[in-house]
């Protein structure tokens, strides 16, 4: 039977032996091992149970993606389909305009992610390593951008990009009341470049905490050697910040990829995956002339959801280490 915590139990055992007589010690150690064993069993049962709950939607998507419609009414089929078919995939790929939407989504997610990372790293460094008047007040305002929900700002933001103008310059040049930036990627790019994108306050917070944790001597050495502020930043500080950068990169990509709120707000005819997935049912019923029966529709929806998150699941398989260690190491909480 394994001791509960081998590394610590050794030293613990030694210390106990010095302080207790042998029969008491034996009783104590046996009790410790017993509770350790019961706890281990309980632990595995709990993790397997919770794992089932967590993976359930993913398993359901996988299973219904390959299932034929006839399997739905077959009560012997629970998870593994009897008749394998790719019909659901074909339907989902076609009605979601998958190829076009995939590349649009990819372009949107990659470009905004890069902008998020650049801006947030830059700004986070500014807040972490420079003393200037109003720093604390401004940083409190960064936190404010986290707290105010995007829904409260959506109407002015919407109107802002519908009639986009900069101090009346555009109206003066074109004579029209501002540019219509809706249905383009410009709103996303502008928001991301200025650190106002989705959850950017959180990324700035993470980068600031990370830079504050790096030793100051690194910078001082570079400055004494004659490097300017920007040179110090990208030659010395950036290479050291790679773990935190990878963390915000991954979060930003995942949240942008799945984001429904902003694409729904700014895009109407532009095809991106969250929107085409959402409108797939309507799309099918207008094409065939009547709504599909709910179970069949649900199968295709599940297949569509699978197609949307498949890239993310693959990404997670390779990069889960960075997601998890990143938050622990970034000192987000410290």
């Amino acid at each position: 039977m394994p001791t509960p915590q081998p590394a610590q139990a050794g030293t613990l055992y030694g210390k106990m032996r010095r302080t207790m007589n042998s029969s008491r010690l034996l009783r104590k150690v046996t009790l410790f091992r017993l509770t350790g064993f019961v706890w281990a069993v309980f632990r595995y049962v709990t993790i397997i149970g919770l794992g089932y709950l967590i993976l359930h939607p993913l398993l359901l998507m996988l299973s219904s993606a390959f299932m034929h419609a006839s399997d739905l009414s077959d009560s012997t089929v629970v998870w593994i389909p009897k008749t394998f078919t790719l019909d659901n995939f074909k339907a989902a790929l076609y009605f979601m305009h998958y190829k076009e939407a995939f590349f649009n989504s990819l372009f949107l997610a990659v470009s905004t992610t890069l902008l998020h990372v650049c801006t947030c790293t830059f700004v986070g460094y500014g807040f972490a390593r420079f003393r200037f008047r109003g720093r604390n007040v401004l940083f409190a305002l960064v936190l404010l951008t986290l707290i105010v929900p995007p829904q409260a700002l959506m109407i002015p933001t919407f109107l802002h990009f519908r009639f986009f103008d900069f101090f009346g310059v555009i109206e003066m040049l074109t004579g029209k009341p501002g540019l219509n930036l809706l249905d383009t990627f410009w709103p996303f790019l502008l928001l991301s470049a200025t650190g106002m994108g989705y959850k950017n306050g959180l990324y700035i917070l993470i980068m600031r905490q990370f830079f504050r944790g790096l030793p100051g001597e690194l910078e001082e050495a570079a400055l004494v050697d004659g490097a300017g502020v920007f040179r110090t930043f990208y030659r010395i500080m950036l290479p050291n910040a790679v773990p935190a950068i990878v963390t915000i990169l991954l979060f930003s990509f995942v949240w942008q990829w799945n984001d429904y709120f902003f694409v729904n707000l700014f895009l109407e005819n532009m095809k991106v995956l969250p929107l085409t997935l959402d409108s797939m049912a309507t799309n099918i019923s207008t094409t065939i002339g009547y709504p599909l029966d709910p179970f069949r529709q649900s199968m295709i929806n599940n297949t569509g959801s699978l197609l949307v998150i498949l890239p993310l699941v693959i990404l997670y398989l390779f990069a889960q280490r960075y997601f998890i260690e990143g938050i622990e190491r970034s000192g987000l909480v410290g």
Partner: protein
Amino acid sequence: MRGRFRMTLAQKRRNSGYLFILPWLIGFVFLFAYPLIQSIQFSFNRIIITTGGYELQFVGWGNYREALFVHARYIRVLTGSIVQMVSDVPLILIFSLFAAVLVNQKFRGRMFARALFFLPVILTSGIIMKMLQQDWMTAITQAGMGENTFDSMGLSSVNLRRYLRESGLNQDYVSYILAAVDNIYGIINQSGVQILVLLAGLQSVSSSLYEAAYIEGATRWEAFWKITFPLVSPFLLACAVYTTIDSFTAQSNETMRLVHDTAFGQQQLALSAAMAWIYFVAIMAVLGAVIALVSRKVFYHES
């Protein structure tokens, strides 16, 4: 002559500081503060969309009055969301702490378990959450899971209900626990980041404290409540704040969906702005009360 224009090192650093935060400052002023003020302004006006933009018509507290006293669903949805949040936050914290303690121990497959618990952050955000919520089959199998699977194990919430009622506990606690059991799926989905934050907290506790306690004859249970719990309490407070804000700004939030529908479904832009601000103020009041209550109990090192 030149001396007058030369800056001290401190001044130089200060100016570079401003330069570094400049992109954010521009965004804050034009894409956050300006819309924020506009949104507050909208909530006191009526918006009329014209061909060349829009016009405002001042109506005072009219939109707020309409949201609170006239609108058929708003006040019900609002109180529903707040009650839901107040009851969910402690559950999410308890579950996250439990899960963090679980995966903090050394055992085979620990990395796998951590990766698993964090998966909901990826799986159930944005559109996927929306699809899951409106999905037929998930709804049916989830309901089925609650009854059939647990039934066959003799652990259905019906049995649990009877068992808890007979145990003589207060009825309010019983219904709270039962609601938690039925909502376990939602709670797990909202706990991903919190588990990691608490895990970081647990790892910051020095193991010598436990050794000393065990030598003095403490049990694991006592060690948890006397050592682990106080030392991670600052992290719990951070998680409480994060959870509140996360559930409040989430797009799956019932009130936020109503706000969105009012704006784009019914074209009542000003009313929707007023609704959002009422909700914001209510949440800030709850959050302030929670922080004021909890932060006195939180244990900090002398540092």
